[in-house]
């Protein structure tokens, strides 16, 4: 009986092991290709926060801030005092000042945890990521070393492998993105280091470290899983929000009614 059980266990192990593994690319590295999405309220606020009004009374509970345990390692973003004041000013003005209200690109890392799917396409030399929100797109060169020629919204990404972790260094930001809807922000001098590590076959552990001595007293990190979307025949749809922001951006320049 014991021998049979052992044999059964052994057989189970042998057949179960490949399904327990994160998919691998032809070159042996973990293959992060696929459709992924985070499940957090980081898009509202990276730090721990309770439920709160969203700031648009007419939308009541529909636009309320859902509570979250926070995704910041150590809970608090280590702002310099004057930068914290700026963050608080951002928060007070968030309904007009948040670039998301204008359909502006989310930048990095915000695009990762906006409540919309993203799709990763991985080859040996290039990882590209398409974001459903505002049809954002990043090109990440594996082994790339070239510095950002100009600033951009999604930054300039160079990556390398450290074992099974894809480490992506992102610089060349224009300083105009926010990190969430609560006014947390970084400057154009920010350097973001993302780490994508297989957690289980359908999960990537996503970590982003943000260094910006003009804003923070020290580097700090966020961490959260990316969940694979396993729906049959799933595909990203266009969230081209430009027309939805036109009234806000240009309504005051509209021809007055006669």
């Amino acid at each position, binding site marked *: 009986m014991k021998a049979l059980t052992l044999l059964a266990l052994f057989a189970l192990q042998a057949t179960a092991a490949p399904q327990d593994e994160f998919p691998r690319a032809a070159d042996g590295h973990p293959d992060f290709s696929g459709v992924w999405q985070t499940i957090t309220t980081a898009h509202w606020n990276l730090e721990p926060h309770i439920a709160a009004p969203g700031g648009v009374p007419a939308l009541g509970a529909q636009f309320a801030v859902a509570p979250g345990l926070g995704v910041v390692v150590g809970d608090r973003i280590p702002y310099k005092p004057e930068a914290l004041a700026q963050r608080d000013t951002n928060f007070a003005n968030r309904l007009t000042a948040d670039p998301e209200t204008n359909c502006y690109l989310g930048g990095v890392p915000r695009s990762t945890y906006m409540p919309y799917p993203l799709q990763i396409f991985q*080859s*040996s*030399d290039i990882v590209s990521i398409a974001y459903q929100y505002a049809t954002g797109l990043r090109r990440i*060169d594996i*082994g*790339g070393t*070239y510095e950002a*020629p*100009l*600033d951009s919204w999604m930054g300039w990404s160079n990556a390398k492998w450290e074992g099974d972790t894809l480490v992506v260094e992102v610089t060349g930001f224009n300083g105009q993105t926010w990190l969430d809807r609560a006014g947390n922000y970084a400057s154009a001098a920010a350097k973001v280091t993302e780490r994508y590590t297989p957690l289980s076959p359908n999960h990537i552990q996503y970590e982003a470290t943000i260094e910006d001595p003009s804003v923070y007293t020290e580097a700090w990190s966020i961490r959260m899983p990316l969940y694979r979307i396993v729906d049959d025949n799933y595909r990203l749809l266009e969230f081209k929000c430009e027309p939805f922001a036109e009234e806000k951006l240009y309504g005051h320049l509209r021809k007055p009614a006669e």
Partner: protein
Amino acid sequence: MNKKNINKNYTNPGKFSIFLRALALATMWTLFNQAALAHHAFALEFDVKKPFDLQGVVSKVELINPHSWIHVDVTDANGTKVTWMIEGGSPNALVRKGVTKQSIPVGSELRVIGYQARDGSPKGVGRTITFADGRELFFDSRVPTESAP
């Protein structure tokens, strides 16, 4: 055909004969006229009856899309400083030629000939933008280098 290393030589491709290179230049001028007529309501943004020719100091450079904007501080005879926003083109092709955000340093002196915003604000489209000493705006940056992306 992925490029492992995006540090590329910007060289003239072997396929492109000298004759065809001249054609490319011609195509540019032809397209210029088409673009000017078809593109982007320039007639409404800027007034052909408000030409200007100014000189000033660069205070901010926005090499952005859909159009670049160069902010130039112009000081008049009375010593009053006005910041002009000068519109240019998309920077994407410049990036491929080695231009970076250091290509127009803040503090450079520029000369701008153009047409002013229709609403009278200190904005204009830069018909000709050069350094005050006559150098072409991005010429020095457009030298074939090992490091153009």
